[in-house]
């Protein structure tokens, strides 16, 4: 996969017609992040990825709860 990925992207960038784009402007990039839609989008990604990747299917656990009688 890694080798195929390199060859594939090299081919794509060679054969796909190049189009013009603006010179990179870091301030413009930072400004584009300061948008409620972006912040909500990033938060949603974090929550979605955590729910997808963070729930362990390979490990289990047993819990027990008790009253700490010395604190009564």
């Amino acid at each position, binding site marked *: 996969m890694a*080798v195929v990925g390199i060859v594939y992207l090299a081919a794509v960038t060679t054969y796909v017609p190049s189009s013009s784009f603006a010179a990179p402007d870091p301030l413009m990039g930072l400004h584009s992040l300061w948008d409620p839609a*972006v912040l909500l989008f990033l938060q949603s990604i974090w*929550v979605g990825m955590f729910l997808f990747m963070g729930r362990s299917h390979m490990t289990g656990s047993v819990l027990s709860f008790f009253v700490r009688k010395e604190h009564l």
Partner: protein
Amino acid sequence: MFLLFRWAFAILPREQWQILAVLPQHRAASNQWHGLNLTYYGFITASAVTLAVGNMLFLLGAIHIPLSTSLWFVLSLMCLTVPASKIIANVVEKKVFTFTIGGASFTGLVMAPVVAVVINRMHHPSDALPILPVLSALVISFALGEGIGRLACISYGCCYGKPLSACAPIMQTLFKTLHFRFTGATKKIAYAGNLESIPVVPIQAITAIISTTVYLIGMGLFLTGRVASGLFVSLLITQVWRAVSEPWRADHRGHGSISMYQ
């Protein structure tokens, strides 16, 4: 970043850094509950992906791509790569509950130009995604995601390296003090590799350092207008490392002497 890695490499192999929280789900015996374990793997991976996506949006914004176009591109690509991380692991490793970063990244690389072309057909030509800088931003951001994301592997004890005792003498000398020693019976290296408390090649740490260094170089190249150089430097180093580092890994990578991931 140096301080984060130094801290993470020291503590994440320990037993207590695998499970982040446990949610009681349903009763077992009296006074006991079966729990759902929430992992640091998920916490770190979610953070890594979010940082990578944020970086991608930053780079696309820096070249004046409209926000709606960028969001559509990222969302479409994630809808393909996230399920692919599970499906490809299932096909290659024949395991249902495993994820593969290599498979997800391959899917992303292959599908990114296709997704960009489809989105360009849906938008006005003035809002079109220029393929070369978009691919460059994607590969550079992926390097950041993989750099941080490998810390998740250390916490879960997956994607582990070979035991030092099985390595060449030069490797044993090189990693005499800089090895990982995972503890905890529920770490993958323990239950799948039988290598608990055994010094192993810190392959996840090496990948994290290489990927993060590549990210910094790529960002420098991209933001100074050399987007093609940023793409190829990031692509070549991350993918060549993925291919050449496989012999130093001890986890199951499918059958055959050359793995599908290479």
